[in-house]
């Protein structure tokens, strides 16, 4: 197998970062990995660790795929990508267990689940398999950072409004809105943040992604 030809234009690093954070944010815009996003974001700390783990797995997997893609046959690329991701998830899982055992005890299960995160394999398939090394790394970094940003944002809101604490420090005497700590509250938080993102887009004078469709 030979190195693939780069048919798609390569976006600039700034564009890639913007996509990861805002215009193609994995959680708020692509709506990927919502289940773990809801499950781990009951506190900002858990969200941050999850975000960092995904960031690391994404960058390392993108890097690996760029290095070995010339030998991956098209027909088996998905299993091969999955094995690459699973390898890095195992590494990150062990690192987390060793470095932050307290947080790992709470969200360890979901770190293992990163293998099945749609966002990671979709970046490999859409980007790292057909772009040069530099932009692939930036793309992986931007998407991982966008995911981590979303996790921390959701986690902070749910922890502050649902549990009355921030980063483990008590802000309020009791739990103001217990509802937000429940899974349903997690989906509400994500939905509201998605709406806020759409609102920002409208305010910036852009059309909404889905506007014009559906029944008005």
């Amino acid at each position: 197998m030979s190195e693939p030809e780069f048919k798609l234009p390569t976006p600039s690093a700034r564009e890639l970062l913007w996509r990861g954070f805002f215009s193609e944010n994995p959680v708020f815009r692509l709506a990927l990995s919502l289940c773990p996003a809801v499950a781990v974001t009951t506190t900002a700390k858990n969200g941050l660790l999850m975000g960092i783990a995904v960031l690391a797995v994404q960058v390392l997997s993108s890097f690996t795929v760029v290095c070995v893609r010339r030998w991956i046959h098209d027909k088996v690329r998905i299993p091969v990508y999955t094995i690459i991701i699973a390898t890095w998830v195992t590494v990150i899982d062990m690192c987390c267990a060793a470095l932050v055992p307290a947080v790992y005890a709470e969200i360890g299960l979901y770190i293992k689940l990163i293998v099945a995160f749609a966002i990671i394999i979709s970046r490999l398939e859409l980007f790292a398999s057909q772009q040069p090394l530099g932009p692939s790394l930036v793309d992986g970094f931007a998407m991982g950072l966008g995911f981590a940003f979303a996790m921390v944002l959701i986690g902070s809101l749910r922890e502050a409004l649902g549990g009355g604490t921030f980063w483990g420090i008590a802000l309020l005497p009791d739990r103001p809105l217990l509802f937000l700590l429940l899974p349903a509250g997690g989906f509400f938080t994500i939905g509201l943040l998605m709406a806020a993102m759409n609102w920002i887009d409208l305010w910036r004078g852009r059309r909404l992604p889905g506007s014009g469709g559906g029944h008005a």
Partner: protein
Amino acid sequence: MTTSPQLQIAPGPHLTDGLTIPKIMWWVSASLVPVYLWAIYCFGLRVLGLTLSGIVGAALGEWLVARLRRQQSTLADGSAVLSGLLLVGTLAPGLPLWMPAVGGFVGIVFGKMLFGGLGWNIFNPALVGRAFLMASFPLAMTTTWLAPRPGILLPPDAVTQASPLNVMQLEGVTRGAELLGLGPSYYAKLLVGLRSGSIGEISVLLILFGAALLLAKGIIKLYIPLAVIAGLTSCAFFSGAPLFHLLTGGLWFGAFYMATDYVTAPIMPAGQIVFGIGIGLLTGVIRLWGGYPEGICYAILIMNAVTPALNHWFRPKRPFAEVAPS
């Protein structure tokens, strides 16, 4: 109108009976007035405060979303006010005064307006508000039942008392029946409404009075309420105290005022009967074998989710042509 009525062509429906949305909403609200006056008489003026709080929260939600979406406000059709009023009917009278406002706001914004407003919502907004309050403030929602003290409008201190269904849940049927003193005089009290409980649910007679008014006006039909009661009855036979289960809890309020919501109930009578029986059975199952003392709120919400399927299964036959079997 410039064309003569004889020449005007318009799409159906051509038969109208003058019952517009605002008329329906205000009639339903009006039929609830005796129920709420009775609650004020039993639990004091704070019920009035809770009611106003719920209505203000619901109306604020309706107004705010319409404003944010730059749509014409639908506040005047009375549906938000009615939702706030119905929400308060499901709440304990000893709640903090701000809580119904939060529930009304959340119920209207998340239960109704985000689905597209009146007519588009899947779930009953008032019950969405109650479910939200239940999930957010479980302690306040389950421990602030007040003992009825008829005639004392401004009680200096609130006397909390477990609701009858709470007693049943905690003590079991034999001891519960003993503690409550089940018997003809107790059942008469339940019928009149001299008991602790949610604001709108305590007096079965006054609910039936309001419901009779709605039936007379043609606003509700009997299919759903009767099916709900039948469903619960069939479950209550397993409880050891069937009459008690039929007279207490939010059964009558839920059956006549919540389950009959036009938007979230099936359209055809056959679907409505299945819907009602489902609510009754689920209520009984939650009461007898579930974790909560009362389950009609969740039973109605669950059956709301089934409504689209019921509408699909029970479709009207075409009046003049048989559809070929597919």
